[in-house]
């Protein structure tokens, strides 16, 4: 059977609104990692930063059989673009380490190496729903127990104007980089929170029809992903009888896989409470997941 109740034992979240130049990550990595690997790219550094934060929050070494599920919508976009330029504009062959590191699962490799993880190691994606893709995979593997380290990592490419164009965003859009991580442990007797359910619907009508059958508790917060407008969010809240909004997009900074940030941000700001997160992809599909923080749940 599929695990419907994922237990969150620890989490970490870093999000930076992108400035005119890239923040140097090396010194930050040295603060959390005794011996940072050499010759790694920014995407790998971002993954290592977040994963070390999460492992530190867990307070003890992770079990070697902990699976690693890395979500990314864009992956190693900076180095891939650079290699393409080197070859097609400069006429230069790729440098060996630069080429090896453009495989996005190298981030998962370095995280596994740093934290001593030997089990499943996947890098997964889904247009508009990359975090949910990794969550789907973890759900399947955790159905019979065990633990998983689940991360969502996105980097920017400077200059930002070209990256906005690449992502199809407006010239004024605020871009961000992020590294958000959860440690899921189905044996944790007192988890910080539960991910209560994860559901995909063909469209908003189906989603609201199914979700409105549930009796949402009055103090449940509603969070709308980047694919829903303010008007869409209001319509969904009315349909579901929800009155409280958790607006994690207030600062407007964007990267793919932002729903992972929503989840972490809610845990950072709420000692108790429930969250329903809904997002819509450009193809109209709708993903929903809910989170329960600080309340006991008895799986039914």
């Amino acid at each position, binding site marked *: 059977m599929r695990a419907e109740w994922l237990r969150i034992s620890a989490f970490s979240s870093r999000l930076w609104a992108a400035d005119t130049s890239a923040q140097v990550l090396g010194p930050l990595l040295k603060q959390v990692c005794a011996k940072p690997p050499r010759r790694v790219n920014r995407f790998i550094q971002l993954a290592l930063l977040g994963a070390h934060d999460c492992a530190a929050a867990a307070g003890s070494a992770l079990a070697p059989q902990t699976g690693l599920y890395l979500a990314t919508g864009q992956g190693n976009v900076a180095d891939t673009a650079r290699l393409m330029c080197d070859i*097609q504009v400069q*006429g230069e062959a790729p440098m060996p380490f630069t080429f090896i590191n453009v*495989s996005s699962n190298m981030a*998962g490799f370095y995280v596994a190496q740093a934290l001593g993880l*030997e*089990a499943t190691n996947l890098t997964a994606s889904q247009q508009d729903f990359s975090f949910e893709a990794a969550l789907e995979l973890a759900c399947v593997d955790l159905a019979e127990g065990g633990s998983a380290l689940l991360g969502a990592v996105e980097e920017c490419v400077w200059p930002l104007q070209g990256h906005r164009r690449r992502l199809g965003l407006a010239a004024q859009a605020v871009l961000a980089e992020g590294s958000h991580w959860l440690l899921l442990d189905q044996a944790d007797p007192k988890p910080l929170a539960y991910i209560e359910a994860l559901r995909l619907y063909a469209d908003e009508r189906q989603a609201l029809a199914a979700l409105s059958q549930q009796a949402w508790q009055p103090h449940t917060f509603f969070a709308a992903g980047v694919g829903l407008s303010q008007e869409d969010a209001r319509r969904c809240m009315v349909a579901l009888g929800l009155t409280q909004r958790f607006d994690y997009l207030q600062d407007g900074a964007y990267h793919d896989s932002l729903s992972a940030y929503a989840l972490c941000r809610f845990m950072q700001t709420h000692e108790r409470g429930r969250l329903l997160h809904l997002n819509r992809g450009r193809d109209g599909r709708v993903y929903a997941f809910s989170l329960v923080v600080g309340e006991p749940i008895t799986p039914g």
Partner: protein
Amino acid sequence: MMKRSVSIQGRGIVSTRGRGLSAQLSALRAGLAEPSSLSLNDLQEPRALLYYPVTGEGGAQRLSRLLEAAVSDALDEAALAGEDLRDCAIFVGSSSMDVGVSETVFAQALAQGDEALALPLSGYGNIAAQVARRFSITGLQLTFNTACSASANALLYGAKMIRAGRIRHALVLGVEDFNRVSAYGFDSLMLSSTQGLRPFDRARDGLVLGEGVGAVVLGAEVGGAGFSLRGGANRCDTASATNASAEQIAQVMAQALADADIAASDVQAIKAHGTGTPSNDLAEAQGMRVLFSDALPAFTSIKPVIGHTLGACGVLEAICFSACLENGFIPPTGNFSGIDEAMNAAPLTQAIDARGGDYLLNFFGFGGNNSSLVMRYAC
């Protein structure tokens, strides 16, 4: 309680050998096909690389046409339509995704003097989304980016999700489209062969890349003759990002057998990863020896026939291997001239008769990403 098994209900393939299973068979029976010599003129000095291309017209729509052909054939064989098709989940495994298309668009923009943007088509989910749009599929779209084990992992998780009752059908794709980043990249690592693919041979000198698209439809097992995925495993070898270790290869194979609930002695033969690179073939052969000891089953590599299709090789080689089995043979490994004494193991050099039973399929990728699958053939 015995686990539910998952059957392979449809297959479609476009490789260097052409479109469809029958187009692959004669070369598979011989274990060998000659690669092409590819002249590349992007760098300051021209390069000639061996390659297994899919022939036909180029352009930015080329990948779309390959996807169309492979997916249509798989869906037709599975007779997947209506609600079952709409709700089907898509699993894509690829190393380079649509980087080749991006390169073409970038080159056109450079030639036209436009404000050219490198990697204009970013995002790993594009191929799955494109297939979903074309075939009106509204289910899950999971894309795996785990280097050369990517589409093997897509098969593994497609089967897991069906077993878990999460989905009824999975359309699993292995996709590799020629691109300069991969071609020059492997060349820069000095992993490109100059003499052709010679997996497990004492004179092996590297890999020869290839391209292609494979599509497999998975569904809950209905019984009867055919192929099923009995289990599998994925593990991370953190010792080296680029060189597999024998011990870890033995472990992932053992874990796959345990997942399939079979013993090592049940394995009829092994479709090895067999890239032709000196270190990885050695590690794979030694890993097989660790697990099977003196009872090493027959093993072979598909790569001398279709090239190393990187992240697509999981699906493409599973399709090719299944085509061989249902035609009554286990394919040989071409270009083998002599045993490497360090590995003390030789692949099949002649096709042998195939019979029903369990087969082990190995796939290993950069980043220590090792996967093994157990496929059962019921004839």
